């Protein structure tokens, strides 16, 4: 098991997926992250999500498109067949658009709730669509952990990779809030990112992470001022310090929020 004497987990990244408005893959994101440049935060573009069959793509909810897009990118980069990978999908809010539509209908005419919208409302809708599209019969999960959704999902994925000695797909995403929910939820743009993790180092290893659970909160991340708007716009952007470190490919340590008063310390090993 890839565990150090201190109880840290060591996992190797084999693939990275990224989609944010106007920045549609990891190579584009890495350029901006290396330079500390601003990310676009607006626009109506939708992820291509070509891994979904065309009829599913047309009717799939926004989080499904987003999660499937980044997951497919990470698998392609890792050159791993998605069908073989256990997968963990993390999101702080789930499908904010469907929640708005469902709650609006329930408040006015509950008998008019759409059956499709309802079955798409489950937090594991992206995991469901993904496993169907890729014919993946392995374990799939959908998790959430408030501001720590990215870190908690990453930790669970790393645990899975280490204990079952299998490569694991991890995807994190959130979309923009709409309707009355937008008044309380701080999420104004879609963003998703994905990693393929393996406990074994191999020819596909792009970077190595050493994960340590910290029983205290993370200090505020020092990020370039140009990226502040991005961090404000989507909860999964709590992961930005990790991706910036990966883009720069230099050894460093970042700390991401995890639980209410805990954090995940991640050493990016050169």
């Amino acid at each position: 098991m890839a565990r150090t004497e201190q109880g840290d987990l060591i996992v190797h990244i084999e693939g990275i997926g990224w989609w944010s408005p106007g920045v549609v893959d990891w190579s584009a994101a890495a350029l901006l992250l290396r330079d500390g440049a601003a990310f676009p935060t607006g626009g109506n573009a939708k992820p291509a999500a070509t891994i979904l069959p065309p009829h599913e793509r047309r009717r799939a909810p926004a989080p499904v498109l987003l999660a499937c897009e980044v997951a497919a990118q990470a698998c392609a980069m890792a050159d791993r067949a998605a069908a073989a990978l256990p997968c963990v999908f993390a999101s702080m809010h789930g499908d904010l658009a469907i929640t708005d539509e469902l709650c609006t209908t329930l408040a006015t005419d509950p008998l008019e709730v759409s059956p499709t919208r309802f079955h798409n409302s489950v937090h594991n809708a992206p995991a469901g669509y993904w496993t169907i599209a890729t014919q993946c019969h392995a374990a799939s999960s959908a998790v959430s952990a408030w501001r720590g959704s990215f870190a908690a999902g990453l930790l669970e994925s790393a645990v899975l990779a280490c204990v079952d000695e299998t490569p694991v797909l991890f995807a994190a995403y959130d979309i923009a809030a709409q309707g009355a929910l937008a008044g309380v939820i701080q999420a104004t743009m879609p963003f998703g990112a994905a990693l393929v993790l393996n406990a074994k180092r191999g020819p596909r290893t792009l970077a190595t992470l050493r994960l340590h659970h910290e029983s205290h909160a993370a200090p505020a991340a020092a990020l370039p001022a140009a990226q502040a708007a991005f961090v404000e716009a989507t909860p999964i952007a709590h992961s930005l310090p990790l991706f910036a470190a990966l883009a720069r490919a230099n050894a460093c340590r970042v700390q991401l929020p995890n639980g209410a008063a805990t954090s995940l310390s991640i050493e990016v090993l050169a």
Partner: protein
Amino acid sequence: MIDSFDDATGNPAIGVDGSSPARQPARGFAQNACVIIPRPRPTHCRVPSRIVPLAITAFTATSALGRGRAAHGEALRSQRGGLRANDFTETPLACAIGRVDGLETLPLPGAFADYDCRNNRLAWLGIGADGFLDAARAAIERYGADRVALVLGTSTGSIGATEEAYRDLEDGRFPARLRNRVLHTPHSLGVFLETALGTRGPCITVATACSSSAKIFAQAERLLRVGLADAAILAGVDTLCGSVLFGFNALELVSPQACRPFDVARRGISIGEAAGFALLERDGAATAPRLLGYGESSDAHHMSTPHPAGLGARLALADAFARSGLTPGAIDYINLHGTATVKNDAVEAVLVADMFPAGARASSTKGFTGHTLGAAGILEAVLTLLAMEQGIVPGTLNSTAPDPVCGPQLALSNETRTIRAALTNSFGFGGNNCILAFGSGRTQ
């Protein structure tokens, strides 16, 4: 071990070699049972290794049957169901529900007022039963807060609070009492319990619809095995809300009467609410029951209907056997998912009839509690542990005439039986499956 069960044809129903034999109706099945042409078993799905059993050192549940283990044990023994005519929704909906009494007048203590909502109220009511809160706090004291994980399972969390906010919008905005953002996220239960208990270990919510609080046992086992925690507090809580009642109604899956799992006349589910809790540790008294194994899988078939051959369920079962070292012949009792939808029960009945000897006993307890969705996994784990403790197989309440696809394993009435090893099945939307294996503690 599960690949050679088809007595009639001698064919494996899921070919280990990737073959996909057309399946003939096997002995004991009606000729009109669903014709199953399984896909090949995915050859890349690795067989997991045996795990070291974990002790379940405390557990409890609160549901329509009442608060705590005594109420649930008594209900099972006396075949007392908890379903009632729907009195929850303002818009009339003719169905039965499994409602927990009194939540409306049980606000959270003042210190936690920000988290007040039906789901967290049920969590707080439930965690106080059977001394569970004390046991959890003692574990935190014993191991240190940073060594205790908190793993939550829920499907809709506190979405009831979001629904309420939309009903009571003030100039298009949420009313002031419902502006705490945490209430409107799937991890609402997690933030509340982490704050209330003061754990500092990993804390995460699994929200995979109706398998959520079964999967938390698997996740907790991994956290202990990898050394990230010495104990895990598991909580599965889901409450009645408009989303699920009217959502399942829109899918035409809600029964107009109390649900009748596996009955020929079944017409769908009855929705319930519940809170279940378990404390997992590496060691415990010899009398404490054990988590022996688990299996998780994906159907890869459809968002809201099960794989017709139960492929995902069979893969989960194979992994549960591999992790626990059990074989079908060693299973005394199976607490079935048994939702009472036409499709779930047909697929699950064939699975049980195929996979287990005639002497194994199986039942669904959904007729007692309703389908408690994201809480069903842990509620039914608790009912299974109680069945072990009491030496009874709970009958399948409300069901009298089993579907002809059911095998002889289905228990309609209570039976007396020593249960040493048991399984619980949980299958969720998105084709998300989890099967847990439990062992009884040594009798004193």
